[in-house]
């Protein structure tokens, strides 16, 4: 089956997931509102911080609006649509890949997209609202923002799946995987100018936080086409690494002999 067929399949999964989420409308909406408040309170920290200290290493509150917009929209897009990306380690450790292995579809896209996040829709909404505060409402800026954020979302999701696939090699690494994703996000949410020397190198390679925070911000702020190309390259590389690690790991997979019903 060609790539078009696979994309159609993923599109079909997303429609089903959305319908499933909408079935429990009150819960869905309350989770979204909860996440909006959650992000809002976190944002308050930066408002208070810059209200008191004005500027740190060239960063002011304006940069934080854009950083939050990029980060929350990328996070929202990644884990709303690829809802299982954060669950990979747990599914492997519990032997719950059997369900996907028995069906005539490529395992990885089926696994990643067979669930849709609920609260992450709140992140998605928050990202759009935060962008409105940046005041960059011309078409070029919006286009660059959407493109850079999409690529950041790909890096976010592929990193989550890659770290989740560590469970093939090290047993139940659900918490380790979750913490690595948290590390990726935590570093990205602070101004990149704070990090110096070896820390910068790590954030551009092993834990690529720079590519879901600082670099997309640079793309929008400076209209930097080179940075956008670099971001696209990193997104493709991340996807290749994810597929490679998953394939090698899958050979080591042992069934849990569990009977699962995916609803």
């Amino acid at each position: 089956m060609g790539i078009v067929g696979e994309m159609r399949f993923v599109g079909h999964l997303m429609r089903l997931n959305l319908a499933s989420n909408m079935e429990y409308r009150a819960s869905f909406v309350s989770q979204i509102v909860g996440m909006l408040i959650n992000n809002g309170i976190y944002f308050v920290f930066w408002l208070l911080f810059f209200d008191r200290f004005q500027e740190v290493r060239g960063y002011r509150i304006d940069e934080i609006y854009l950083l939050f917009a990029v980060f929350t929209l990328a996070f929202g897009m990644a884990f709303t649509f690829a809802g299982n990306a954060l669950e990979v380690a747990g599914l492997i450790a519990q032997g719950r890949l059997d369900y996907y292995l028995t069906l005539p579809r490529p395992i990885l896209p089926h696994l990643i997209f067979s669930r849709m996040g609920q609260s992450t829709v709140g992140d998605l909404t928050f990202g759009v609202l935060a962008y409105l505060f940046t005041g960059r409402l011309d078409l070029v800026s919006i286009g660059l923002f959407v493109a850079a954020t999409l690529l950041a979302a790909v890096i976010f999701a592929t990193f989550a799946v890659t770290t989740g696939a560590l469970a093939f090699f090290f047993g139940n690494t659900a918490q380790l995987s979750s913490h690595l994703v948290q590390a990726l996000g935590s570093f990205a949410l602070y101004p990149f100018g704070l990090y110096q020397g070896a820390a910068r190198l790590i954030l551009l390679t092993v834990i690529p936080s720079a590519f879901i925070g600082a670099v997309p911000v640079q793309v929008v702020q400076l209209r930097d086409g080179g940075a956008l190309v670099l971001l696209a390259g990193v997104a493709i590389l991340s996807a290749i690494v994810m597929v490679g690690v998953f394939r090698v790991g899958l050979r080591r997979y042992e069934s849990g002999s569990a009977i699962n019903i995916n609803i």
Partner: protein
Amino acid sequence: MDELIFLPAPAAVLHRRTWRGSARKYLAIARTNLLNRLAYVWDAASNVLLMFLFIFIFAQLWGATFEAQGATEIAGLTLTQTIWYFVWAEMIQMGKIRHVRTVSQEVKDGSLAYTLGRPYNYLLYHFASGIGDVLIQAGVLLVAGSLVAWSQVGPLYSFRLETLPVVLLVTALAFVLDFCVLSIIALLAFFMEDVNSLLFIYHKIVFVLGGLLIPVDFLPDWLQAIARVLPFNLVVYAPAKLFVAWDGGQAVFSLGLQVVWIGILAGLLTVLYRYGTRRLTINGG
């Protein structure tokens, strides 16, 4: 048939036996969970990774902030005290008892009903079970955080060893207070489909009003006034501040407030638990 006469045991003996039995029971629960925790070394190791990360980020952020302000002290705290403050604060936050998902799930799927017949108090069981975890986590996290803080800003010279027992007491009560709030959130699953958003909101309130991301002293005056009377600062800020900048009067004040808030929240928790278990229905056979 001879008449059997049962002599009542003196009340004090009975009470002592019951109390000892209960204590032994909950200690056994804590011990079992502690051993269970030791079996999952990877999880503890990954927490250490996060601790390294957070203290490193805070050292960078606050180092740059002190430098930008050209200040040796901000709101009475030096850079060294500020970074060590975050070590203690993060130790509490990351070492806390994590039972919300389990309890809310047991409420939702009705499996809570099966535990009601067991010879223990459901909430005390979760507390005892979590304490074993806390002891391991907090110890490991403190060592990890201290290593990073020491490498970034040097030792904490303002720390006084003789104040440690009181700091530990305030910290222990912080865990109890946090447990009460989290248990209330978990039991709200009797009325709500999903309590995750409430949990997120509580965590984020602790981030700001509790002093996890920014010491309460650094907040604007009007917000400090609010933060200081709410229970959230007693979970993180109060013990962490006493650790880096001891103040006897503040210690007594914090202990008093902690006891009052624990009383209020434990009362609320008891009412919620009794009301919820009366409404509990289970399906299946």
